[in-house]
């Protein structure tokens, strides 16, 4: 089979600009051949090289005394959690594949991130995900006025796209059930497919999926977001490195044979998603084998317990190409492999295909010379296909031979590290003018005033049933969120909490040598547990993309603030965070501005909460023909809870407990009173606009320290953060979110008195999303003390009611309202199941 000639068209087809192609030639000192072109294409894709975002990513805080492996060094960051233990965690996107083939796309997304974690030598102990889809319900069924006018300005390179074609506005004019039904059905198909794909992979691998978030918005129609997070545990001395160390060391390939699946997936993920590309790229979606991954994981952890491994790297994006190139680059060595030795699933695959395949569950392992036999024994024991495919050289080059003939000869470090870097042009988006001009009284031109709520209970039920707010039990009941016996707080509270116990760790060298690998060496003999050793890790993933869309900088701050607030509510102190920047096409200056501004907000907030970024992922080009997605910088934050008795949940506990609001009822300094970008405006008024609420990071930080003080002194019975839907939704959730067992919720009512509020706009009081607020419940004897202490700390605090009864009853200056908690629970708990039925 002869390779095609290198033409400008072929170069373009590989997403390389003429300049980049020149740079490639300069690095090689000659024209690249077909295989090398493919290699440059994937290595210099955004997915692998971050060429559009490097300068921005540098602005994140990435240091702290606790960080053992920092951002960008390896496959995942690692943070110390004391007693010689540390955790490795990272979030990564699989958006484009999931858009094309939701089940396998999402499944292999889980597989990829789990591999990143055990590549570090850690045992993966839990998974989390963040998902975005188009609406799964007919939003006009719940909205009372035509859908919002809003949209990112046109991609300047595509003049035929104009504001009206973003999807939003088109539908705003002529949105009828018939018109949008097919799209909604497709959104449901993607949603169901992604969830079952995650369930399939995570459940079969045997990792609990213990937390996550799901939002539904028009901007994700046809371009869903699937961000997967994984956390693993290890001992300090067990940290493994992805470097090809030791000249002459043999290079092993382990895992299933290489096929044609996932060809150039990384490059595919780094271009706009169009119907054509989606169709054409179906071959770029990989197929996952979770049980194989389990075997590979156990074999690698066992292998690392021996002293045979010089370096280890998973074959993820850009498969064999990326893993060989990066390991050599990290070690400053060279690497030479022989393709005819690589196990192949399909007959007569070309070097191009073998190098760019993204077949799953494969690892590259650099073995210390002379230890080959041990390695082979372990792979055979786990019934894993393996092959010795090459060796480490001192040439600094990545040399690939096929039946002895050199097909690739590239300086490894140059291609890995000298990838092009772009300072993209940034311009403030047009749409923000209208957003900033928006006022509730309708003073902005061409905008009608926003009527106050007429039926607060009806609106509350609408919000509780709004899919982005409603209970996600339809999702997490499909995930095994309890496997491995560590899930202390299950999905459904502000943050999930997992227990780190002795069998959460990879086998230690001592234990391994003790067992001589006789029984299952991942746990040679069941370790007897010493409870003092146990640790409690809380984690949450958050991103209110509507805020970020309406104000990237402030919205970015709010994303991090909410994550930190969720951790504080569960009793945890932040250790660090990992982010997944999901944006549209960076060549559009307005999109790059969104990216730049939100990163500025994220970085500032991560500093404020001392939650440095240990790594993450950038996913650009998230747009379909209707336009870009809302900017979605997802943040997963991990925290440590000192003692089990500090673990706190969001639901009310006992009749008679006093309910306290920490924070302001309404931020009167906000012209929109916390309604800008609120779910209330979107769900009730069909508007996605207005400047979102501000987050003062100092006040937020003080709130968290105060709350943690209360929790650690043992007086907090429940703590829940106020986010989408404001005080009303938060209170309702406190009443209805505890689930005892199948069809057995524990419902408890509350009498609330908000009549002290100065604000006379009822919707702002009930549904406004003013930041830095938490709802507590405490024993009546502690109530006064809590309010006083909070005020001493400078945190506004007020008693707003008592727990008890079978209703949520709210008294305000403008009247009293109440609803039975059973009807609220039904609206909230069953909403998504009904939509998906």
């Amino acid at each position, binding site marked *: 089979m002869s390779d095609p000639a290198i033409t400008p068209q072929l170069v373009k087809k590989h997403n390389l600009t003429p300049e980049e192609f020149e740079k490639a030639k300069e690095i090689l000192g000659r024209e690249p051949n077909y295989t090398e072109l493919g290699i440059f294409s994937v290595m210099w894709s955004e997915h692998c090289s971050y060429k559009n975002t490097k300068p921005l990513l540098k602005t994140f805080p990435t240091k702290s005394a606790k960080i053992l492996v920092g951002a960008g060094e390896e496959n995942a960051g690692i943070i110390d959690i004391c007693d010689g233990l540390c955790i490795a965690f990272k979030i990564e996107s699989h958006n484009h594949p999931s858009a094309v083939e939701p089940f396998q796309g999402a499944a292999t997304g889980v597989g990829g991130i789990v591999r990143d974690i055990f590549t570090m030598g850690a045992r993966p102990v839990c998974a989390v995900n963040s998902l975005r889809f188009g609406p799964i319900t007919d939003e006009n069924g719940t909205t009372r006025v035509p859908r919002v006018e809003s949209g990112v300005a046109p991609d300047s390179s595509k003049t035929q796209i104009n504001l009206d074609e973003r999807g939003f506005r088109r539908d705003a004019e002529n949105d009828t059930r018939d018109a949008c039904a097919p799209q909604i059905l497709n959104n449901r198909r993607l949603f169901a497919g992604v969830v079952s794909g995650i*369930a399939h992979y995570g459940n079969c691998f045997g990792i609990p999926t213990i937390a996550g978030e799901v939002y539904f918005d028009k901007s994700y129609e046809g371009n869903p977001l699937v961000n997967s997070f994984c956390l693993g545990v290890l001992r300090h001395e067990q940290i493994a490195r992805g470097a090809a160390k030791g000249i002459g060391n043999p290079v092993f390939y382990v895992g299933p044979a290489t096929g044609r699946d996932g060809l150039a997936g990384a490059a595919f993920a780094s271009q706009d998603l169009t119907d054509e590309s989606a169709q054409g790229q179906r071959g770029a979606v990989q197929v996952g084998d979770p*049980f194989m991954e389990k075997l590979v994981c156990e074999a690698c952890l066992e292998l690392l317990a021996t002293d045979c491994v010089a370096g280890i790297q998973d074959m993820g994006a850009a498969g064999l190409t990326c893993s060989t190139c990066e390991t050599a680059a990290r070690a400053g060595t060279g690497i030479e492999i022989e393709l005819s030795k690589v196990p192949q699933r399909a007959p007569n695959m070309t070097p191009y295909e073998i190098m760019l395949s993204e077949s799953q569950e494969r690892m590259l392992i650099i073995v210390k010379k002379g230890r080959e036999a041990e390695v082979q024994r372990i792979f055979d024991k786990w019934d894993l296909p393996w092959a010795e495919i090459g060796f480490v050289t001192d040439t600094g080059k990545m040399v690939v031979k096929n039946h002895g003939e050199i097909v690739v000869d590239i300086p490894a470090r140059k291609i890995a590290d000298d990838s092009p870097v772009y300072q993209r042009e940034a311009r403030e988006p047009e749409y923000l003018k209208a957003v900033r001009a928006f006022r509730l009284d309708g003073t902005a031109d061409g905008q009608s005033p926003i009527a106050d709520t007429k039926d607060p209970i009806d609106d509350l039920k609408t919000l509780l049933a709004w899919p982005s707010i409603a209970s996600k039990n339809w999702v997490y009941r499909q995930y095994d969120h309890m496997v491995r016996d560590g899930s*202390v707080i*299950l999905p459904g509270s502000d943050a999930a909490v997992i*227990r780190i116990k002795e069998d959460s760790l990879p086998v230690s060298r001592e234990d391994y040598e003790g067992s001589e690998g006789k*029984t299952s060496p991942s746990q040679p003999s069941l370790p007897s547990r010493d409870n003092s050793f146990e640790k409690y890790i809380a984690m949450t993933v958050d991103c209110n993309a509507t805020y970020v869309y309406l104000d990237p900088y402030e919205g970015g701050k709010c994303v991090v603030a909410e994550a930190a607030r969720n951790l504080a509510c569960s009793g945890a102190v932040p250790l660090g965070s990992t982010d997944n920047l999901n944006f549209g096409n960076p060549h559009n200056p307005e999109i790059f501005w969104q990216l730049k501004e939100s990163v500025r907000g994220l970085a500032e907030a991560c500093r404020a909460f001392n939650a440095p970024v240990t790594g993450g992922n950038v996913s650009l080009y998230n747009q379909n023909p209707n336009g870009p997605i809302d900017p979605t910088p997802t943040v997963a934050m991990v925290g440590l809870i000192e003692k089990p008795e500090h673990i706190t949940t969001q639901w009310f506990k006992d009749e008679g407990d006093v309910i306290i609001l920490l924070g302001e009822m309404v931020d009167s300094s906000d012209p929109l009173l916390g309604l800008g970008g609120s779910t209330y405006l979107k769900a009730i008024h069909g508007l996605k606009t207005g400047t979102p609420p501000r987050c003062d990071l100092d006040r937020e930080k003080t709130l968290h320290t105060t709350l943690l003080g209360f929790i650690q002194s043992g007086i907090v019975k429940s703590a829940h953060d106020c986010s989408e839907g404001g005080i009303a939704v938060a209170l309702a959730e406190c009443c209805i979110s505890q689930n005892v067992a*199948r069809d057995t919720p524990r419902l408890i009512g509350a009498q609330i008195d908000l009549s002290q509020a100065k604000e006379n706009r009822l919707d702002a009081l009930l549904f406004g999303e003013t930041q830095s607020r938490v709802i507590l419940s405490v024993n009546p004897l502690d109530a006064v003390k809590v309010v006083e202490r909070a005020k001493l700390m400078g945190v506004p605090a007020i008693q707003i009611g008592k727990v008890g009864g079978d209703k949520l009853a709210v008294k305000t200056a403008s009247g009293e309202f109440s609803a039975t908690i059973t009807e609220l629970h039904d609206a909230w708990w069953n909403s998504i199941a009904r939509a998906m039925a």
Partner: protein
Amino acid sequence: VLKNVLGHSAQLVWHKENSLGDTDAVFIPGGFSYGDYLRTGAIARFSPIMQAVQNFATNGGHVLGICNGFQILCEAGLLPGALIRNRSLQFRCENVFLKTATPDSPFTNKIPADKLMRVPIAHGEGCYFADETTLENLKANQQILWQYVNAQGEATEQSNPNGSVLNIAGVCNEARNVAGLMPHPERASEPLLGCADGKLIFESLINSVNAKAVSKAA
């Protein structure tokens, strides 16, 4: 749980080994043996170790299969009936209530009468199925150990998470030394994890194993 919570010694056995060694009872845990791509437990039953389990059971040894372990025991013919796809065709992970239908078995003797145990399930193929005659025998010989019930202890359609016939969650063989259940008692054996009801099942088994040892000695 056995070792850490109940202070008993336990040893993992590698699936390729042929012998169980000297042991009082065998547990076949949950998981996804061989990925369960074909049919749950369909391949695991052929693991070399399963022959040893067969012999151990034939000689009256106590065997308990949990979740995938239950599926494997059914596939191996050590327990009657079969486990098929959940009625919902979806994986289900949630807490359920269990009623003990047969209080005097080696697996239930420590469970107080009318005690409702709250134990999690986590499976995609937990719908217990058996033909009429088998069901009649199960009833006649009191082999139905646990049923899915609601908070009031009633075995209703609603309280049945997977569509199992007669809301069956777990059964034992006629000799009463082999049992299996889909729920995960080991995940409900510590207050920290929300509930310790599951411990009762392990305590029952330990109790009867000890009793057996005593009677042997006598």
